[in-house]
């Protein structure tokens, strides 16, 4: 074992090497020189930096025990003295040197390639520079239509530029897809507004009067007006350190290494994109990781070998899934048969190659739908599990068991056998455990569904248990309660659970009972299941007081009612605030004040706004066609009708909605669980939107609906959500987790593919017919009212610990001293 290891370069491959060495107990010094000013980060996800992922999120964690020299590359190697020279002139001795200098983007030698406005696409600094330049630019050109080129084109498009892609080859992504796939891919890319020029090189980049890039000229003389040019036409290994110190490099670059990743000098290794391993330079992250692990093993005295890698890829570029696996290049038809499926309308192209006896899977190409990739890639070189045409449509079915030596995670080279062994030996029970133990699923994530399947195959219960009291998921409990007609928590936990519940399962069961229409939520035993907000029909605040939010359907309110709210707030000394859902929050009420406040509000025609419940909150609206000169439908009228229909509907989480009267979308409907936007013909329905912690725009579920069709569709959407979502899962996460996604949802609620629509409709009818105002019902019940006291033995006494001071003319709580912080 060597005592002093120096690594030149700190990208993903170097990071994997360092991490592996330390995890395997390396003793001795480890010094890493990185040219970039920051630790290694995830280059595969580089484009996500432009959509808001921070550098910190992209950065790989640096293990303890490494000396990092960042912003300071290695500039020379003296192999005789076993010393490297760094950019700042310092010298560092080594016992073992690992070259991991990566690659540089290839910039073709054309006139104008160095003009201001020309960029490459590799580092965070490159992206910062492109973003800065995009501010003044209208159009951009990417030179190169391969994987990285399309990534760069996506980045330019997201920056709002009119984007062109220039590709020398006769199709996009020539290394991954064949001619048919390329044509489908091109149509996808063009439908996003990009202009594709294939079979085209670059003659020159020309400057305008300001000396910056103004246009790119193709060899045929055509000029593309653009202020930004990004070169992304392949990579060249950074092998200059090796060349300068006399180590052999390949004819077209790359440091020559043996299967142990060792160069001609036994003390010098090379890994990643700078290495020429197994006859080629590898630019995909998976093989580079494997090389790093092989080198680490050799440094530690092992005998691991790199003999080439599976170059299969699956990616989603510009919203299009593209996958290629196994062998897909056949010079002639001999030795292989192919099965092709092409649907130009849906933009789907799939082609499988099988051996000439049609028994062995050789490879495949998918564009537009990479569904078969996850299940078929592990079968490459193995007997086909089903007929080729079945496989093209469904992939290998769930019943097909993978062979043990099948590679499940190609990014990290993990076989099924290794995963099964880890499950058994380490007692793993979830996907996270497999990721931690084997690294499978940690890079591109496409094998995660396979990991789940292997867990199930290994007899592991994949952990949908709600809590220690129920081994069921929320959806399973819902079915049990509905099917068996259970109406109390006591019966449910006696027959299907253990113990007496907790703050997780009790509110879930309370919500299920309420969704199925079991009377007032504070009736009998149900009261003890409710979280404090539901228990007091108000929202608890930090000092133990509550806030009161009356319903203001659609945000429409008469002057008389506004005045009542103002009077109530003044009389009870409450703080008032307009909410985001177009209503008014009254804060600072003590429990014993709540019934008195409700009484005043209910007498004036108000009812509970369910701000405290996992239930429908508001249906927000813009002013709509009644007043607005742009409006095309009555958005306020629809919002009020929907809010009154779904008020009080208990769900796995809160539900927010909005209706906009035209495409200007002033009600922000696409940030809601269900949002409706008026069209000339009717209503467009969007579902699964979210604001808050993880914003998501809602997806279009159905277009140009008549009002009755719209209501029926929303009914079913909500009831299907209530039946099947997990605890505290908003519609956005529910939709994203649904097998088959939006198409599946559409099939269930518009085509009745599960045959449950009649049930869903009936359930909603029961809800609508059974609605009562929870405030009014509480006021009419002395037993319930008795709980609204600060002290059971002194009903008139307020909690003396609650104190306020004033700020901007209203009360605010005086903070209490706390001895511990949560």
């Amino acid at each position, binding site marked *: 074992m060597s005592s002093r290891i120096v690594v030149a370069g700190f990208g993903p491959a170097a990071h994997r090497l360092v991490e592996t060495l330390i995890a395997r107990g390396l003793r001795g010094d480890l010094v890493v020189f990185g040219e970039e000013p920051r630790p290694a980060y995830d280059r595969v996800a580089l484009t996500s930096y432009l959509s808001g992922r921070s550098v910190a999120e992209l950065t790989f964690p640096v293990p303890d025990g490494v000396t990092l020299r960042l912003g300071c590359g290695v500039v020379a190697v003296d192999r005789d003295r076993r010393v490297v020279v760094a950019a700042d002139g310092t010298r560092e001795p080594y016992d073992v040197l690992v070259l991991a200098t990566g690659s540089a983007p290839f910039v073709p030698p054309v006139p104008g390639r160095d003009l201001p406005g020309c960029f490459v696409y590799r580092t965070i600094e490159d992206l910062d520079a492109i973003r800065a330049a995009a501010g003044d630019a209208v159009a951009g050109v990417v030179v190169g239509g391969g994987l990285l080129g399309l990534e760069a084109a996506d980045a330019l498009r997201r920056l709002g530029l009119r984007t062109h892609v220039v590709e020398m080859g006769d199709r996009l992504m020539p290394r991954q897809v064949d001619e048919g796939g390329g044509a489908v891919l091109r149509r996808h890319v063009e439908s996003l507004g990009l202009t594709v020029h294939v079979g085209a090189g670059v003659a020159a980049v020309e400057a305008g009067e300001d000396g910056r890039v103004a246009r790119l000229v193709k060899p045929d003389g055509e000029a593309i007006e653009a202020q930004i040019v990004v070169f992304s036409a392949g990579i060249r290994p950074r092998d200059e350190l090796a060349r300068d110190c006399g180590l052999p490099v390949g004819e077209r670059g790359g440091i020559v290494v043996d299967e142990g990743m060792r160069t001609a000098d036994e003390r010098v290794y090379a890994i990643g994109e700078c290495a020429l391993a197994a006859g080629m330079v590898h630019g995909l992250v998976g093989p580079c990781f494997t090389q790093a692990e092989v080198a680490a093993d050799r440094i530690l005295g092992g005998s691991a070998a790199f003999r080439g890698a599976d170059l299969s890829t699956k990616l989603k570029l510009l919203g299009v899934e593209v996958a290629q696996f196994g062998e897909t290049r056949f010079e002639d038809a001999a030795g292989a048969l192919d099965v092709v499926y092409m649907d130009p309308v849906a933009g789907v192209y799939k082609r499988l190659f099988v051996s000439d006896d049609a028994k062995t899977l050789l490879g495949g190409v998918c564009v537009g739908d990479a569904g078969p990739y996850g299940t078929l890639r592990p079968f490459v070189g193995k007997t086909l599990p089903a007929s080729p045409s079945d496989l093209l449509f469904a992939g290998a079915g769930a019943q097909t068991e993978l062979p043990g030596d099948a590679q499940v995670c190609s990014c990290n080279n993990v076989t099924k056998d290794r995963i099964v062994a880890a499950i058994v030996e380490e007692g793993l029970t979830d996907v996270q455990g497999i990721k931690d133990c084997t690294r499978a699923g940690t890079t591109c994530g496409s094998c995660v569904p396979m990991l789940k399947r292997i867990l199930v195959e290994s007899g592991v219960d994949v952990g949908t248990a709600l809590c*220690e*009291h129920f081994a069921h998921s929320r959806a399973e409990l819902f079915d049990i309660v509905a099917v068996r007609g259970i109406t109390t928590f*006591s019966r449910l936990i006696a027959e299907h659970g253990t*113990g*007496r*519940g*907790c*703050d997780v*399962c*009790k*509110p879930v069961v309370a919500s299920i009972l309420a969704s199925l229409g079991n009377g007032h939520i504070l009736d009998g*035993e149900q*009261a*003890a*299941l409710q*979280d*404090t907000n539901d*228990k*007091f029909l108000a929202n*608890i605040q*930090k*000092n*133990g007081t509550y806030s009161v939010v009356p319903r203001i359907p659609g945000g429409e309110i008469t002057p008389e009612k506004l005045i009542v709210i103002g009077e109530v707030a003044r*009389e*009870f*000394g409450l703080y008032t605030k307009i909410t985001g859902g177009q209503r008014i929050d009254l804060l600072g009420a*003590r429990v014993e*004040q709540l019934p*008195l406040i409700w009484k005043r509000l209910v007498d004036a025609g108000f009812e509970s706004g369910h701000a405290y419940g996992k239930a429908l909150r508001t249906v927000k609206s813009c002013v709509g066609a009644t007043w607005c000169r742009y409006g095309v439908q009555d958005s306020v009228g629809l919002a009020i009708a929907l809010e009154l229909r779904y008020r009080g509907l208990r769900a796995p989480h809160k539900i927010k909605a909005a209706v906009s009267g035209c495409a200007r979308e002033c009600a922000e409907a696409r940030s809601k669980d269900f949002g409706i936007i008026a069209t000339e013909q009717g209503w467009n329905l969007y579902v699964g939107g979210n604001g808050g912690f993880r914003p998501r725009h809602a997806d279009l579920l159905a277009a140009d609906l008549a009002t009755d069709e719209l209501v029926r569709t929303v009914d079913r959407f909500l009831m299907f959500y209530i039946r099947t979502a997990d605890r505290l899962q908003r519609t956005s996460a529910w939709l994203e987790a649904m097998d088959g996604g939006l198409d599946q949802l559409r099939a269930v609620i518009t085509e009745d593919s599960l045959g449950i629509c009649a049930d869903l409709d009936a359930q909603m009818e029961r809800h609508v017919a059974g609605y009562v105002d929870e405030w009014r019902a509480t006021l009419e019940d002395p037993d319930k009212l*008795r*709980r609204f*006291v*600060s*002290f*059971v*033995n*002194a*009903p*008139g*006494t*307020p*909690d*003396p*610990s*609650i*104190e*306020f*001071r*004033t700020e901007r003319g209203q*009360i605010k709580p*005086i*903070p*209490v*001293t*706390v*001895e*511990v*912080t*949560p």
Partner: protein
Amino acid sequence: MTILGHTALDHTGLDHAALDRTYADETGGGGPGWTPVCPDAQLVPELGAAALVAGRQVAVFRTFDGGLYALGNRDPFSGAQVLSRGIVGTRNGEPTVASPMHKQVFSLVTGACLDDPGITVPTYRVRVAGAAIEVKVA
């Protein structure tokens, strides 16, 4: 300016004479050190109640199997007097209440926070005497 919650009550038409009258006054008080807090029948299983006993705020609970427990009402994590409003349940068989503020779970038996060892709330003695629930804080 400090406003005690009281001021708002002036507009609510409450019986002010009742403000400082307690259940103990009405029932004539319990034994030495014991304070009656409410009729036995009023304490619903798994639905806590807060009581003011000798100036201290106490959360009183009856579990599903009939056990009686009393803890300090103050949630040590938020400082608010709210533990009586938490959800009552069990953890590995031990009766518990979860703070309604941030859901830390406390043992009804020992007052120990089961999610944060080292944090404890006071426990008090509680009993049924005749038709009343009584609490002893000293």
